[in-house]
């Protein structure tokens, strides 16, 4: 059992990072903190893809006559694009956070919900 866990060590690290990111996203109300958590979650996915592509004794997938074993290039390609797209979407999220801050004056989820409820009550009251 222990040996088996050791052979899957890379997966354990991935799972730990993923859970940490998930916890930040669920438990923290601050929108920027949530985005940081989301990017940690994202890096755990990078690791999940890259780690199985590694071969012991292999080198980076740049062909040269003196090497025979290469690590798997396919996950590298996928994750390369994922990182750049990831930062673009992170920036989009930050832009949304900035706009929310301008509209509500806060980026705490609880306070935003409270403000929303208050406004709904205000809108409902004149009808009564």
């Amino acid at each position, binding site marked *: 059992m222990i040996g088996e866990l050791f052979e899957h060590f890379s997966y354990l690290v991935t799972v730990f990072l993923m859970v940490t990111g998930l916890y930040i996203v669920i438990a923290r109300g601050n929108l920027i903190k949530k985005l940081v958590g989301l990017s940690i979650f994202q890096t755990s996915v990078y690791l999940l893809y890259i780690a199985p592509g590694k071969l012991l004794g292999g080198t980076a997938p740049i062909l040269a006559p003196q090497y025979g074993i290469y690590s798997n290039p396919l996950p590298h390609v996928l994750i390369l694009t994922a990182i750049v797209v990831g*930062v673009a979407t992170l*920036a989009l999220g930050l832009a949304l956070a*900035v706009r929310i801050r301008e509209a509500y004056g806060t980026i705490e989820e609880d306070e935003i919900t409270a403000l929303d409820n208050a406004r709904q009550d205000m809108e409902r009251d004149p009808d009564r």
Partner: protein
Amino acid sequence: MENNLVLRVVGKLLIPFILLFAVYVQFHGDFGPGGGFQAGVIFAAGIVFYAIIFGLDQARRIVPDRLVETMLALGVLIYAGVGVAGLFLGGNFLDYFVLDRNPVHGQHRGIFWVEVGVAITVCGVMLKIFYMFASRGQREEDA
């Protein structure tokens, strides 16, 4: 930060090399680690560094907004244009083998232009994002 002598001197020394390294990464991407995505990001990082040290307005004078917005669209157009060029030369969309009489050279040419397109778009987007955030902060300070 704009009056810090050490930062200004070191920045002036380093920024040309950052930009040069970005170009190296772009064109040497076939043989070593690198490619359009990395080159675009490194180039943008160099200009962001410049903007942080010398002020946003100075950076905007060198790389104006209009140019950045053009780069945004131009990169995607170059990429798609390579695909369409393949169509016109009798191949499939994004088929590089027909771009030259020698199919391997055609591949090289296709990959080169595609990477250029990717780098231009990525660099444009990163710079645009930075400009948007930074200029918003500046205006808030003024207000």
